[in-house]
């Protein structure tokens, strides 16, 4: 039986890698994938704590997070496609429509 802390450490490492990916990359698709990775890291810690406390609510929460992630991916990729069609770039530095 692997201790729960190890899962939490792994989850934190994966989350940190996702944050670094969002910060250093300028390609919108890779930023998107990094966000997905961060969502998964949080899911992992939910499942680990669900086993730790023998409580099913954590797994239900992960299920809901997955549903929201699926919706987010559908809408997010549609936005990415629209932006690429209008601006012809995937670099987020070039997308500054809302800059004041």
């Amino acid at each position, binding site marked *: 039986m*692997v201790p729960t802390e*190890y*899962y939490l450490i*792994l989850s934190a*490492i*994966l989350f940190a*890698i*996702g944050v*670094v*990916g969002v910060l*250093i*990359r*300028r*390609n*919108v*698709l*890779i930023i*998107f*994938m*990094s966000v*997905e*990775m961060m969502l*998964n890291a949080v*899911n*992992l810690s939910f*499942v*680990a704590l*669900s*086993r730790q406390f*023998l409580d*099913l*609510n954590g*797994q*239900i929460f*992960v*299920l*809901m997070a*997955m*549903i*929201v*992630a*699926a*919706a*987010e*991916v*559908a*809408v997010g*990729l*549609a*936005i*990415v*496609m*629209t932006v*690429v*069609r209008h601006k012809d*770039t*995937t*670099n987020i*530095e*070039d997308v500054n429509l809302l800059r004041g």
Partner: protein
Amino acid sequence: MFLFIVFALIAIVAALGVILSHKPVYSALFLLMNFGTLAALYIMLQAQFLAAVQVIVYAGAIVVLILFVIMLIGGGELGSGDRRTRGTGDTATAVPASSGRRVALGWPRITAIVLAVLLLAGVGYGIITGQLYPAQGSAATFDAGSVQAIGSVLYTDYLLPFELASVLLLVAMIGAVVLARNE
């Protein structure tokens, strides 16, 4: 414990591959490997249903959707997405990505092959030694990750969130269709 270390290493290296590879296609495939590894970790945490959902929803649907979008908007020119920043003078943010790319000529394939073999070996070892099966018989068994337990909670205590989730998915689907429509 050994199996956990193998899977954790694969997950971390695949995550690094997602953020360091310069082509989005490679990133998407590394992301797929990361999700698969997490599914194996869910099984080790006795959340079998979530492992299946992870494979079906994340590895099956989301990665395929990302790959479709990469295919539609052109995977080749996407590689210059980071390079163009350097030309416009904003070097502070572009340097880490580009220096990481220069070191990494051709490494995604080697890394991917090594990781895939490791993942296969890990899953095979887990199945042969029985570590990837849900623990049975012991008093400390947490048999709550099964489909039956999840379903009975989901359709009684969490019925309203469940129905709201279906509404959310419908709204997201309509929103995606409206946004991606070609006017």
